[in-house]
């Protein structure tokens, strides 16, 4: 990393009065390494971890049951119908993929913006991205009527039918966007892990662990030449991931915006989907970070500074989202289009009006408490607000997907959407998948980037006169 004098002052001197530091004082290169690798390599498995994992794994099994029955009977087990052709599956898809965005944002965009407070949260945020994308990526497949065909017909491969995907469809864009996003996120995460895996290789006592981590570290040895290329590639990946992450939710929003349905056909969707994604993503980061720093003693590294910053990002993106909602109402009125106006009226006062007002409450009203500094610095309160935001963002997708569909152009074809138990099981099941993966991750991979944390230490800096070289 560029460790010019400017950055140093950010980490060391330019704190506002009372602002917590990014890294608690007193750490050394060795202590950071030990502290982070201790969780994986030394710490015994605790009852807390086991019970948490068991719950998550139980939910994962529920997901398996739900999907198994789905494949057996068909999507008719869900509450979807005509007109509401998309229900929980797509809502969950958008929700999960949105959550994933925070990880890439933290690791790529904040890297480009040289916000090095990100160093202590980017690793698990990236893992969160991967797992969220895995949860999300499942839905476009299983929500189809014939997933056994969709799984390969959506890709352009030379087949015996001589037919190809239809590239004007946003769903094909989705396929490309989500699979690219998944691939790039995985590469980014893995590249970031390589030096830490080398650390684990060199620190682990268990020969099997040494072997496995050694294999994954691919012989990383920290050579200056390697670091140079590594840094270059990492930066370029960040540079590529930044437009990618912005594009992914844009493409997801195109699923709706490209259609002609009132409530979907909205030009403001791309920016407000991206903002909403980051909003929910940061909420999920906090939902993960607050227990992690609590139970794994990471308060030194994930400090109140991080909570504060994350809360501020939420506040900012939340306001963008609020602006989006306001604009939707404005557009509906200003368009003078009867269908649009009706859609907005129905959203607010129709049979699903409760969902809209719940969305306004959870996504806009309640998070305004984040203006209060003491709330931002209080982990438990922040945790609760984050949960509220996650619920709110899910409601947003419910309102957009189901409520727009249930009453469209022809009143004769209006309908209602009532999710079934299989809808709920699938949704809860993905939470199981996500947290199962998360629990495994914190036990087998460094949850905080060790080598990047090292760069935050004063002792990692080259002495004054050397810095002048630059």
């Amino acid at each position, binding site marked *: 990393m560029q460790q010019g004098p400017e950055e140093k002052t950010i980490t060391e001197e330019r704190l506002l009065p009372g602002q917590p530091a990014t890294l608690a004082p007193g750490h050394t290169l060795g202590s950071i390494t030990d502290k982070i690798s201790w969780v994986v390599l030394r710490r015994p498995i605790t009852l807390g971890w086991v019970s948490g994992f068991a719950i998550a794994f139980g939910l994962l099994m529920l997901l398996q049951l739900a999907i198994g029955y789905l494949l*057996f*009977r*068909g*999507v*008719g*087990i869900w*509450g*979807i*119908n*005509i*007109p*509401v*052709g*998309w229900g929980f599956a797509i809502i969950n898809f958008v929700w999960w993929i949105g959550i994933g965005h925070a990880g890439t944002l933290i690791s790529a965009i904040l890297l480009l913006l040289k916000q090095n407070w990100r160093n202590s949260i980017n690793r698990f945020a990236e893992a969160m991205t991967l797992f969220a994308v895995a949860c999300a990526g499942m839905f476009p497949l299983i*929500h*189809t*009527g*014939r*997933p*056994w*065909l*969709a799984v*390969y*017909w*959506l890709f352009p491969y030379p087949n015996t039918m001589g*037919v*190809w*995907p*239809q590239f*004007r*469809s*946003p*769903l*094909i864009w989705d*396929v490309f966007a989500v699979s690219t996003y998944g691939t790039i996120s995985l590469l980014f995460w893995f590249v970031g892990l390589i030096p830490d895996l080398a650390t684990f290789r060199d620190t682990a006592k268990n020969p099997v662990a040494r072997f496995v981590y050694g294999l994954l570290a691919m012989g990383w040895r920290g050579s200056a030449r390697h670091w140079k290329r590594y840094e270059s590639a990492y930066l370029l990946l960040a540079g590529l991931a930044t437009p990618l992450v912005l594009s992914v939710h844009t493409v997801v929003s195109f*699923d709706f915006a*490209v*259609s*002609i*349905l009132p409530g979907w*056909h909205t030009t403001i969707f791309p920016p407000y989907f991206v903002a909403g994604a980051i909003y929910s993503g940061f909420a999920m980061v906090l939902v993960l970070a607050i227990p992690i720093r609590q139970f794994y003693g990471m308060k030194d590294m994930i400090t109140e500074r991080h909570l504060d910053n994350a809360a501020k990002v939420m506040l900012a993106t939340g306001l963008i989202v609020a602006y989006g909602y306001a604009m939707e109402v404005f557009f509906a009125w200003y*368009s*003078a*289009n*009867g*269908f*649009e106006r*009706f859609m907005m009226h129905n959203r607010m006062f129709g049979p699903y009006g409760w969902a809209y007002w719940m969305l306004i409450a959870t996504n806009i009203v309640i998070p305004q408490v984040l203006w209060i500094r003491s709330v931002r610095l209080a982990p438990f309160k922040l945790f609760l607000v984050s949960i509220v935001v996650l619920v709110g963002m899910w409601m947003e997708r419910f309102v957009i997907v189901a409520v727009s*569909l249930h009453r*469209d*152009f*022809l*009143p*004769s*074809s*209006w*309908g*209602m959407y009532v999710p079934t138990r299989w809808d709920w099981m699938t949704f809860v099941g993905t939470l199981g998948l996500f947290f199962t993966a998360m629990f495994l991750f914190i036990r087998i991979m460094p949850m905080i980037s060790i080598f990047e944390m090292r760069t935050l230490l004063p002792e990692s800096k080259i002495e004054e006169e050397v810095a002048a070289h630059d």
Partner: protein
Amino acid sequence: MDNEQNTKGAQEPAKPKADVCPTKRGKLELSEVRDMLTEKKGPQYWRTLDELSQTPEFEEMLHREFPRQASEWEGGGTSRRDFLKVMSASLALAALSACVKQPLEPIVPYVRQPEEITLGKPLFFATAFPMPMGAVPVLVESHEGRPTKIEGNPQHPATLGGTDVFTQASILTLYDPDRSQTITYLGDARPWGQFLNAIRGPLNAQKAAGGGGLRLLTGAVTSPTLAAQIRDFQKLYPQAKWHVWEPVAHGNARAASQARFGQPIDTQYNFEKAEVVVTLDGDFLSSGFLGFHRNARQFAARRRPELKEAMLRMYAVESTPTNTGGKADHRLPVRASEVESIARALAAQVGVGGASVNLQGEQAKFVAAAAKDLQSKRGRCVVVPGEHQSVAVHMLAHSMNQALGAVGQTVIYTDPIEAAPVDYTASLKEIVGDMNAGKVDILIMVGVNPVYDAPVDLNFQQAMDKVPLRVHQGMYQDETSRLSHWHINGTHYLEQWGDARAFDGTASIIQPLIAPLYSGRSDHELLAMMNGQSDASGYDLVRKYWQTQHTGLDFESWWRRSLHDGLIEGTTSAPKTIAAKGTAIPAAPQSSGSMEIMFRRDHTIYDGRFAQNAWLQETPKPMTQLTWDNAVLLSIATGKKLDIKTEDLVELEYQGRKVKGAVWLTPGHPDNAATVYLGYGRDNSGRVASGLGFNAYKLRRSDAPWFDRGLKLTKTGETYELACTQGHQNMEGRALVRAATLEEFIKNPGFAHEMVEAPAPGLTMYAAYQYKDHKWGMTIDMNSCIGCKTCVVACQSENNIPVVGKTEVKRGRHMHWLRIDTYHEGTAENPKSYFQPVPCMQCENAPCEVVCPVGATVHSAEGLNDMVYNRCVGTRYCSNNCPYKVRRFNFLLFTAPVWDSPQLSMLQNPDVTVRSRGVMEKCNYCVQRITHARISAEEDNNRKIPDGEVLTACQQACPADAIVFGDMNDPNSRVSKMKAMQRNFGLLEELNTRPRTTYMAVVRNPNPELEPQQKREEHASLAVADAGKGV
């Protein structure tokens, strides 16, 4: 998935039997079906399969009784290509495209191929579908000996090619796996021979005694042959009596004609000449009304606003809202009992009848205006009484028609088409009396179900118990058969020889399209047995009868021509001039109580005889759009007053009898009255029919079969879910149906285009696609459409559309490719109604196509919006993006019954793929018909396809000729001409979807005295065009 099993099967091709229709869906779906069975009751139940079909006995029987079809069953229920196509279409759909090796299929040729059959080419046969109010002449499409589709017979004068829901759906009854399949004695299967032995003795005894203890109970008989046979029967058993029972047919019309003319008379209407129509609860546009098809056609023709001032105007005095009332320009909702006083007032004002009745307010204005109009159009007007109206109303209508010069012009009297035009209730009363008196030794019931549908006060069941020998013939094991000693399984009309008269008297020969599936006995054969001709075949009987009737020389060619044309020339009833004998109008009966109960025959299952027909059950009832149930219809005000909501379960108490039914609050229903539909509440009558709705017959008395006061409604506090396909019947101010009055139309013929602003053609960056050869398009005239749903059932039949059952309908998953949206406009007390058939619009800028990720829905070069089932992966995105919501999705394996029931497999149209689960489907303008027409035109020296050669199924079936389909590139085609008319508009055209299906705007013809010219700006202000909304 089942990869392993399939490859295994494929390695051993030597055993075709095992490989046929392999396990691909085998285990999975079978258990699924079982699952469905155990999980669901009622309407879903019918989908289970006929266990019988699996047994060797069944196969053996098929070979014996079903020679034409026998080969189809070889190899464990599979056969020749066409049949196979149906059976395994969806199977291959799942299997092949899932990258699994295609299973080996057998191919089974005939042993001796019938000469008339060209494999792969359907044949059409003319026959007729008998109904009590007159048979419906039809052409039946047959694929290698199995009938698959019923079409109207355009050559027939009675229907002009139109059909109705019952006719269209009658083919499903043929293949119903729940039909009675064997003769039973006290419930045990017996062969025909045993029945003969058992009945011979008692019959001989009767013969000796002159038949005094023998009673024959039939439904309405319009068959000349059967009538002749019954005459023979009465000769053989001179003391025997023949009784006729029909629960809903004719209503009081017959009693009235008896009173007025001293003889039974059928009243036909000729709307061709009508300019003013007043109905007194006369629902002449509903399937089942005498002359429905011709009424609809003529009415629609007279409703063209292009006729200007000569356009027909209709006033409807109406109790239960019907589609006839929906088509009326002025509708007066009153209770059924109040129609009489309106009729008296109207009669007085046109100068007939006795003392005038004083009407108040709205009613007085209505009657005055109607009377004035009637008198100004003497000879070009008609008063139509409802069948279920009182004798007085019928008499008044006769008088009015007479006084207005309508008789002979718009009203035609003919002799009844029925052989025994009796008063059914009286006839039934008599037989019940005889049975109670112990005078009846043998009761033969042919095609009737009086235990279920007789008036409850007659207590038919109790009387029947006193008869020592009871024989029932019918297509189903029903309430009556279960209480009879012998049940003879009857034949379907497509399985038997016979004849029948249409409502205009024209007789048609009924010829079988298929040998009886379960060796049933037709009514002719049963009668022949009793007449001592137990070996006579239906064919001989019918032919012999007509030989006696035919006077010309060459009987054979006459017979062939009659069969071919589907009608017997010269049998049409002649109009009759008959003087009125009695004109005294009976006094109105006095009844007490404030709440009125009104009984109605059901719009889709008639008197209950079609209750087992799943297509009809799933056809939304006109106006209410309810499926699978009957309901207690109440007005919204009455509901409010009694604090009853839709779907509340109420107890109906009338004359000490009680039933429970669910309420449906209905706009336009008169206050303080409840309509109940007959035909539901069956138990143990087949898997479809049982357990649906409530049995209104349990309240119906012989002295008040249609309406009466004294109903008590009590809330039970429970609710009962009803499945409605259109929950919202308000247009919300959108310009979906575009309507104007005639006056407005004459002033501004292009009014429909001013309601929204459709984007101009060419408003695009790209060159428009050129449709060079054909350019198929459709217009639907909403002024003509009477909302009868015949097209819906025709489409279902043509396109192998599955039935989903009540639960799935309730969830919004019905599969109809074509629906009729019914909208109400105006007040809840008396709304205007509009019917809008909505098939796929085949948009040129189809929003569905753009969003499909796999290209499963794309445009053809002729402008069809193709749906490629085998490519579809089921994202449902197309449906979400379809503003018309005409796409239907196979959420579950809705076609399971087709695969698993051999009978239902035979029903499928081999030219249309049977869709599997997870696949989207929709209307494709009957592309199979277009393809066949194109191929035959190209093979025939590349001739042009003439306009009218390709008829879509809905178009063919439409009795009102509201649907026109054709080539828009041909400027002389009917569709081009329709599209050039100013009434033509595209639904939601403001979205720039460029629909190929367009509508003719509604033009109403209200009387300016009743409806002063209003500002009709509501539409325009609310549904503002949005030209910028690209697709």
